[in-house]
């Protein structure tokens, strides 16, 4: 069996890369991808911790996360498309009508 620490290290790295994508990439689609990576980092942790769980809580939870993440990205894509039609951009630096004056 792989030591659990390896999984945690991988998931932490994935989490930080995902966060970096969310923080720095200006394209909304990149940001969505980054969020997916963060979700996957959590999934890796859950599955790794849940390997020996008789109630399989980890696996069930990550299945739930996958489903919810899919639903969330559906909504995100719907809004992205409307946004693109209205503003003709998906660059987060340009989507700044709402701000502190």
């Amino acid at each position, binding site marked *: 069996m792989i030591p659990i620490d390896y999984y945690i290290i991988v998931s932490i790295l994935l989490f930080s890369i995902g966060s970096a994508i969310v923080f720095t990439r*200006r394209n909304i689609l990149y940001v969505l991808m980054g969020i997916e990576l963060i979700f996957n980092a959590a999934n890796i942790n859950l599955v790794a911790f849940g390997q020996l769980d008789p109630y399989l809580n980890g696996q069930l939870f990550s299945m739930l996360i996958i489903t919810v993440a899919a639903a969330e990205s559906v909504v995100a894509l719907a809004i992205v498309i409307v946004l693109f039609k209205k503003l003709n951009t998906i660059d987060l630096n340009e*989507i700044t009508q709402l*701000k502190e004056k």
Partner: protein
Amino acid sequence: MNGLIPHIDVPLISADDISVLALTIFFMPIITFVLLFFTGKHILAPIRSWLATGVMAVMFVLSLYLHIHTEGEHISRWIWFEIGSLKFTASMLVNNYSTTMMVIATFVSLMVHLYSVEYMRERRNHSKYFPYLALFVSSMLGIILSDNLMITFIFWELVGLASFLLIGFWYEKDSSAAAAKKAFLFNKFADLAFVIAIMMLFANYGTAEISVLKEQVSITPLLNAGIFGMPILIGFMIWFATVGKSAQFPLYVWLPDAMAGPTPVSALLHAATMVAAGVFLLLKTSFFLGDWVGNLITIIGCITAVLAALQAMRTFDAKKVLAFSTVSQLGYMMMAVGVGANDAAFFHLATHAFFKACLFLSVGAVIHSMHHMQSHQFDHGQYKDLDTLDMRLMGGFRKKMPLTFVTYLISYAALIGLPFFSGFLSKDAILGALYDWATVSNTWTWFVVAAAFSTVAITAFYMTRQLIFIFFGEFRLLKTDMSYKQYFDHITESKWLINIPLIALATLSIWFFFSINPLHAQTGWWMKQSFVSGEHHVFHFFIPILASVLSIGAAVIAANRYKNVTVFVDRYVGLTKMFAQNFYIEKSMDVLLIRPVMLVAELCGSTDRWINHLIHGKAYFILVLAQCADVFDRWIIDGSVHLVSAIINGIGSFFRSYLKGNVQQYFYFTFIAFALILVWLAWYL
């Protein structure tokens, strides 16, 4: 909550006949208010005004009856609400003290109502005037009657609300709206202290019942409490609450501005009753004032008296002069409270209520006729912007309105403290008490006494100045504009509705209503009644003489100075400029209070900027460090420093636009703030 508030058994007492009568009087204006407020414009103006006035007359008669029949104390107390096992009570106290105050309040209100019937007849926005007055009177009665500080606080706030509505009554005028707001805010600031006082009371004694607290405090004398002991701090807080309402230094600046309301309102609120509420409350809770608080009250009262009097010397607004004089007289009352001469303070409160109301109403009559001139001219097709309150434009009303002149003269004499008038008696009582206090205290107390005496002189000076400006000489408005001549010729004495209150109030400014002996009040029935316990001072013969000499002398000087006033403008030079600027009190408040709040707001509103500055500052700091280090080792440190500053600048450029619309900056903000909180917590724990 039970752990927080100490448990105390407060006995419940059901109301007796006297209390029921007092309650009836208290509820009458509320009914008037509801009736008039919601019928609004649907009933005719005369009916409305006479209804309110009639109710007020009935209230006055009932109060008089109540006063005559009240002996001893009549407390009634009942449960207001309960939270768990904790009972909040409400209570009412009727005794000589409160009934006297009720008689004064209802009498002055009645006079003001009569006066207003005529005064407000042609004014716009009339329909809400009398309901507001009724609201004011009822909340004033609430303060007078309630024996519970929480209830008192509610009425205290209601008085503030009513005065806000009445000062801002002509809210179309900018000055009026601004004055209302100012009065409201200054009062609210002071009221915070009241809230704190109530909290402290609950935390320490578990109740806000004044009569219960009185027993509690007497069980543990103030001397054992230490300098910052709880009862003393509570006394301090209650006093600070009255600093707002009773217009003491440094919060008194709202009162002169509050003259923007209708003149009868000024007479009622800011001369006779509302500002007196603070002194009244302080007298009621005087058992809290121990140790250093009394001295503080005296000193602040003294400062208030002198400063306001000085400002009155250089004001040209006829009503503002009276307003400053009110502030100054309130300072006297506070001094008396501070030295423990409670009877003298209450005595002066009573006499002041009558003669100051009379002064206001007399000046109001003059202003009323000035208004008439303006509106007449308007009717003839000319509109000129005329400051009807400016004393420099008045003059010569002595012959046009002799009755008003006489009433003004009587109340003037009372205010500056000439013998045979009520002010003489009460001022003498206060000055005597101050003198007695000074003889047993430190040397610095003589400064207070000296200031009090010099304020007598200043008072005489500015009142004489106003007298001459308004009633003597010739009509100075004509010097700038002859077109007023025809209207001035037609000015006559006011209607009787205005004159009756003037006469009544002026009559009450004469000595024999308070004491048979015109020179000495100690033997008079008023002081013998001893409404609030206090020390009686020994009669010093030279004090009234000195005061009279001072005031007569100052009056003569002023009369000489302004006898031949034809020049239009007094110049503001040197010190007097400071008077005109309100002693920079408002400016300093702006700097001390408002600016910092706005600064914090700015800081929070633009977190990015200061984080950015911080980062920049750090970067510069590192750069400077690098320059120093250069001398030793240019090649090693330089590169790393540049790297650090580049990184910091890079992050900084992202922070520049926190809340500037880019959602990724929000992420950064959240992340860094969250991380900082967690790191700080790790360090803290």
